[in-house]
């Protein structure tokens, strides 16, 4: 093995299937045993039993009051003469779901869905970008942080350098994934996730040449800690950043294409963008990827005008996708180890505006699905009359939801990851994730 392949090799030892594509198995064993750093990091997950978090972003600021409707309260109708939802799917004596959320309503009956009332944070920021950043970094609203909350979980709990520890369906990696050791991959279409050398006379040689360019002529005495990926962070030069990105793209794409070629879902997913994203996530889960956290996003919730039709369509798409995802996870027998959590940067103002829409607001409910989730509505609903600048006052800090997920599902120390202890979200005195 020449010194070029050494770096590639060190990174592939964490990649299971991808290793076989690039390095002969006997070399893998030999080299793995020689390199203690590599060996000790190979406590990487096997892909078959570890817990999985799926984060679903409702981008644009979902109108919580028209998602989980306080149908028994007069102030709701008074504030929204044009856009109030008048035929909710009742969950209890006070709240019901938007009529387009029929599958989700069914999941409440089946005992595998929960919602937390009034999730937000103090001194809410009403800018999409800033508030999205706050949710993604899990900081106080006046603090800035470069790493995302999931990235800090990767740093704390996911040793090794697998570039598919986080998988985002989309073009860019979310800030939530930003960590000191980049370990996430983002893509829309697994089929396109490869260097296409098919047009050349000798595709293998061309592919090999391409792969060679992301190898570094290091001194040969490489240790894990000296790899650019491990040095990581913002100090890495752009050239090193690109070499690492290129190498990770090759290794990650080898693995992901292998898995998606092999695994199909049994549940029928809707053709919407969020439906396709959750289908892809399902196939990757079926293929036992070592991925701990998946990230998908559904956009369009910024309903400043003509909200009724737009919001209906979005919730219908969301509902169909969630229904299919739960059915698929159950069919795969993976439902018990998967938790899906939604978030949106903010809810919307209680009062409708003159354009039949709603402006940026604050607190809103969060949806949780998964085997360990205590079903039902949790937490304290925010008051519709005791408002702050026209907005709901949050009753549950979003980091309490994160802490519950981290501690109870991912087995991760939330206090370390979130910077301080946040109380778990409780139901009847017990955490809402068992």
């Amino acid at each position, binding site marked *: 093995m020449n010194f*070029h392949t050494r770096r590639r090799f060190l990174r592939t030892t964490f990649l299971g299937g991808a290793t076989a594509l690039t390095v002969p198995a006997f070399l893998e064993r030999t080299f793995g045993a020689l390199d203690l750093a590599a060996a000790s990091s190979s406590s990487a997950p096997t892909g078959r039993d570890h817990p999985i978090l799926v984060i679903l972003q409702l981008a644009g600021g979902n109108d919580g009051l028209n998602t989980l409707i306080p149908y028994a309260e007069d102030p709701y109708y008074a504030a929204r003469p044009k856009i109030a939802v008048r035929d909710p799917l009742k969950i209890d004596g006070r709240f019901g779901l938007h009529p387009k959320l029929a599958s989700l309503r069914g999941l409440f009956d089946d005992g595998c869905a929960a919602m937390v009332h009034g999730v937000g944070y103090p001194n809410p920021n*009403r*800018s*999409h*970008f*800033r508030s999205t950043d706050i949710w993604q970094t899990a900081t106080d609203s006046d603090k800035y942080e470069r790493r995302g909350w999931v990235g800090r979980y990767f740093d704390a709990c996911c040793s090794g350098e697998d*570039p598919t520890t986080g998988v985002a369906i989309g*073009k*860019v*990696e979310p800030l939530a994934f930003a960590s000191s050791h980049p370990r996430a*991959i*983002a*893509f*829309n*279409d697994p089929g*396109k*996730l*490869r*260097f*296409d050398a098919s*047009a*050349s*006379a*000798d595709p293998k*040689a*061309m592919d090999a*040449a*391409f792969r*060679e*360019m*992301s*190898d*570094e*002529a290091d001194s040969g005495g490489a240790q894990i800690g000296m790899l650019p990926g491990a040095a990581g962070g913002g100090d890495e*030069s*752009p*050239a090193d*950043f*690109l*070499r690492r*990105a*290129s190498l*990770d*793209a090759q290794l*990650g*794409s080898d693995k992901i294409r292998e898995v998606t070629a092999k695994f199909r879902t049994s549940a029928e997913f809707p053709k919407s963008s969020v439906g396709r994203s959750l289908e892809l996530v399902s196939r990757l889960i079926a293929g036992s990827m070592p991925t701990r956290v998946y990230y998908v996003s559904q956009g369009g919730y910024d309903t*400043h*005008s*003509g909200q009724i*039709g737009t919001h209906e369509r979005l919730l219908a798409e969301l509902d169909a996708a969630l229904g299919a995802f739960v059915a698929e996870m159950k069919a795969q027998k993976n439902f018990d180890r998967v938790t899906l959590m939604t978030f949106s940067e903010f809810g919307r103002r209680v009062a409708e*505006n*003159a*354009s039949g829409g709603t*402006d*940026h607001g604050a607190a809103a409910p969060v949806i949780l699905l998964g085997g360990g989730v205590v079903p039902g509505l949790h937490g304290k609903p925010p008051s519709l009359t005791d408002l702050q*600048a026209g907005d709901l006052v949050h009753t549950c800090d979003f980091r309490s939801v994160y802490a519950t997920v981290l501690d109870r599902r991912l087995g991760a120390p939330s206090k370390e990851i979130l910077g301080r202890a946040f109380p778990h979200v409780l139901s009847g005195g017990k955490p809402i994730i068992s």
Partner: protein
Amino acid sequence: MMLDPIKKTEWSRDRAALLLSRACFGCCPREAEAAGKAGLEATLDGLFRDDDAADLFPVPENVADPAAFADLRKKAGGPGKNGDPEAEAARKKLREEEAAALRSLRAWWLQRMRYAPQPLRENLALFWHGHFATSVEKVRGTHIIWKQNELFRSLGLGSLGDLARAVARDPAMMRYLDVAGSKRAMPNENFAREVMELFLLGEGHYSERDIKEAARAFTGFRIDPETMEAQFIPRQHDDGEKTVLGRTGRFGPDEIVDILIGQPECARFIAGKLWVYFVGKPLPETELAELAAGFRASGCRIAPTVRRILSSEGFYASRGTQIKSPVQWLVGSAKALEFPLEGNQAQQVALRDLGQDLFAPPNVKGWEGGRSWISSSTLLARCNLAGSLFVSKLAEPEKLFAGAELADPSALCASAQRRLLVEPAAPASREAFAEVVASGGSPVSRKMISYLLRLVMSAPEYQIT
């Protein structure tokens, strides 16, 4: 130090290539040589020349005419016509026509970037498009999106005040951030917030109260459905007293913009963003204060500050630290390979896949830029598009090289790198280039030249400038 102009003796062909790569989307070797010989000042004079090239690039008819789809729009009707089959058909037709118009508009702009005699002007239009981000996804109307683009082109190197006041009354922006239709009884805060947070001040330099007050000043406008121009409706406008950033008066849109531009933060915010756009890394605090002071002293005129940036030691010391945007990558590839760029469908789809769909930035913050351009999927897409959009379509790639280079593999590799790379290749990349050329034997075949070009364009170094 960083802002000092580089010395005449430091000017070179390679520095010229860096300048043209960052300011003009790229260049071919001849242009780099010529600029290297001409010197920095003469090159910059050329970049900032104020010629009108409009007649070279006629605006597509279906874009230029505000009434192009007026009939269809009438037939399509409002939400009340839901379910009416004639209205549905008109809506479908309107969508198709608008999509076609948008494609021709994108092609038109890409051609300007590739061929316009003042590519810097196009680049500033792109900068302001990302800054005053407006997406056709919400605006729906190619005509007004084009008008906004012309605004960025004509005022993009002028005074910030003129530009920002025009943006506040720009129909596309008015529609994007809900100024159109905002009334005194219930002002929409969207534009008032973003004009402070994203356009002129940056976060933390205003209060929620400033936003609410300013929103009142932007009430009373709509878009005239015939002319597609902004129209003032006095009875919908709140002409009462407002207090914004400590000043009180019966302000309208222009006064609010002027108050914001008068804030010291504004010059820092804009000058710092221009620096990052052309250089990559943020400017350190002391130098930023200096650059901002110069910008303010010039009456917030944009051209002198851009020229200062493009002359500075800091700019030329930053080679290899900027990640090319998809537009830079696409237009620059065409320029470097002396390849035509008509802005066809495949090229437009490529930009979307690489994450920079023109006229459709992801949100009002525009494109984040820098490392966010690169994900596993966009990086692999760049490498693949280098082959499918460009190299495989070069009928005679050998024409890019001199006879002596074609006879000598190492000279060929060197020439290809000089043509395509601003940042010199690392040893691993150079070895890969050499191996591919060597594998084909001598003399180097046309096919091998293509492989070499494709490989250089797939190198990590090709993604940076």
